[in-house]
């Protein structure tokens, strides 16, 4: 379903700290519900570059959850303050308005769409990249597709979103396993350590891996899946000015030469379509 043409102002209905991240909600009265993996271009209506000129461009943010709400849909976004754009998005107040374009880009394929013999899914999220894994996890659970979820964080300051996105009844969903590089939560080490163990198991070939996270992690996931001949879909990030194919900024090298525009041909790409995930 097409995104409404142009940008529209949506009201912030909630905003809260979540660990080291922020999670905020917008009420979208016009757009269709997003598919898991899709993103929006977001810019605060006020305080966007007025003093000092940055942020200037809208920011591409993956949707973490979407829930029907009254007339329209409530969109949840998980953000970390890593620069002037996300800094502004991290201090939105309820009642403020945000310019929204989207939903944009493609979405995850079901395991059997990727591999007709697939029996289940492995979701691997790192850092702020856990956001699209949350909405995708819910869709898979609703379809009764067996899954395991591996989430990794660098340290306590660079983590969040678990309570809102991966908990039920106050405790972590049973299919979710945590890792942290500093050992503050779950397995101490990389999330890809757990993936490597899982892919070495007997039943791994019947899974499809879905992943979103920092480039180094995504590249490790891509390489592990290639090594074990397991299909994977990666939700990637790239510098993006427009989100609708106009700027040609978000070029990602293809495995067969040339580039794709991540905004219109992604952000979800098959692991074997990508040359390698660039270490930005």
């Amino acid at each position, binding site marked *: 379903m*097409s*995104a*409404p*043409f*142009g*940008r529209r102002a949506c009201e912030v209905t909630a905003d809260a700290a979540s660990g080291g991240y922020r999670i905020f909600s917008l009420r979208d009265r016009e757009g269709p519900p997003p598919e898991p993996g899709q993103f929006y271009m977001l*810019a605060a209506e006020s305080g966007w*570059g007025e003093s*000092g*000129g*940055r*942020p*200037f*461009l*809208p920011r591409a943010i993956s949707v973490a959850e979407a829930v029907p709400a009254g007339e329209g849909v409530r969109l949840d976004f998980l953000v970390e303050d890593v620069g002037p754009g996300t800094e502004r998005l991290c201090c939105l107040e309820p009642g403020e308005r945000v*310019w929204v*374009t989207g939903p*944009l880009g493609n979405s995850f394929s079901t395991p059997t769409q990727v591999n007709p013999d697939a029996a289940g899914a492995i979701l691997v999220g790192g850092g702020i990249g856990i956001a699209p894994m949350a909405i995708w996890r819910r869709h898979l659970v609703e379809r009764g597709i067996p899954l395991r979820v591996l989430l990794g964080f660098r340290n306590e300051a660079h983590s969040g979103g678990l309570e809102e996105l991966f908990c039920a009844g106050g405790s972590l969903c049973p299919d979710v396993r945590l890792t942290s590089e500093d050992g503050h939560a779950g397995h101490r080490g990389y999330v890809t350590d757990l993936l490597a163990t899982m892919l070495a198991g007997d039943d791994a070939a019947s899974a499809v891996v879905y992943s979103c996270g920092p480039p180094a992690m995504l590249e490790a996931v891509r390489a592990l899946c290639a090594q074990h001949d397991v299909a994977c879909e990666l939700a990637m990030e*790239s*510098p*993006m*000015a*427009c989100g*609708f*194919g*106009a*700027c*040609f*900024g*978000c*070029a*990602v*090298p293809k495995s067969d*030469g*040339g*580039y794709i*525009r991540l905004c*219109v041909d992604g952000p979800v790409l098959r692991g074997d379509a990508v040359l390698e995930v*660039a270490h*930005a």
Partner: protein
Amino acid sequence: MPDFCGIELAHPVINASGTYDAIAARRVFGDALLAEFPFSAFVSKTITPEPRVGNQPRRIWETPAGMINSIGLPNKGLEGFLAEDLPQLAELPVPLIVSAMATNREDFARMIERVAERDEVAAIELNVSCPNVHSGLIVGEQPSETEALLEVLRPLTGKPLIVKLTPNVANPEAVALAAEEGGADAVSLINTLKASAVDPASGEPAIAAGHGGLSGPAVRPIALQQLRAVRAAVEVPLIGMGGISTAADAAEFIAAGATVVAVGTESFRDPGAGTRVAKGLETTVSQSQPRVRALHLD
């Protein structure tokens, strides 16, 4: 209804070449794009004789009130464009201007002949911000190169030829004059300003190509001054652009002598910016003409 080189436009706002891919936008927004098309004419991304994949990333970098880009003109090449893109662009509800570039006059001539013979094409914009491989000189930086190129291309078509000026010269008006003397029907300006940035995380150039072109509101006062200088030098109609984000910005360019204005980078922030500027311009120009004049003279 502005008349631009004999092309009737519904309003004076078009897009800057390379800042809107109407084919991709239609995939994203569906036919609502056609119903609410934001421009009164559509300028294609620059095509070249052969296909190009474009530059390796990183290609864009945000700057205060603007951005630097070095995209590298990815396109399907002349024949790919004519076969695949042109029929889709012909479905747009507005006249089509094709932007073309080549690195020698023979290739340029071949492109102009092939493009101009297509009924879907209303006009051609010559992107001269490229080197002539024979002389090694950037065509648009040299009045003599520009005039010589026009003398080759002018006899090939009766359709309007627009020369897109580069701002990276001391005297853009000299190049504009050479274009006019060579037979150009119109001049458009400005292209992006040569610029660079350093990625603070690595200490390396932020753009993989080393440098790129600056666009956005940051360049607007420079664009406006170059437009005034060119306006004073030539008689042909001008397409003014450079950081136009609002109707008030566009009104300044019109007051300074532009017949048509182009929106570029602002469309990245607001896909419907062209419509917003055009609608605002109706009000601004009809109700605030004295104020616009004052802006021009102050």
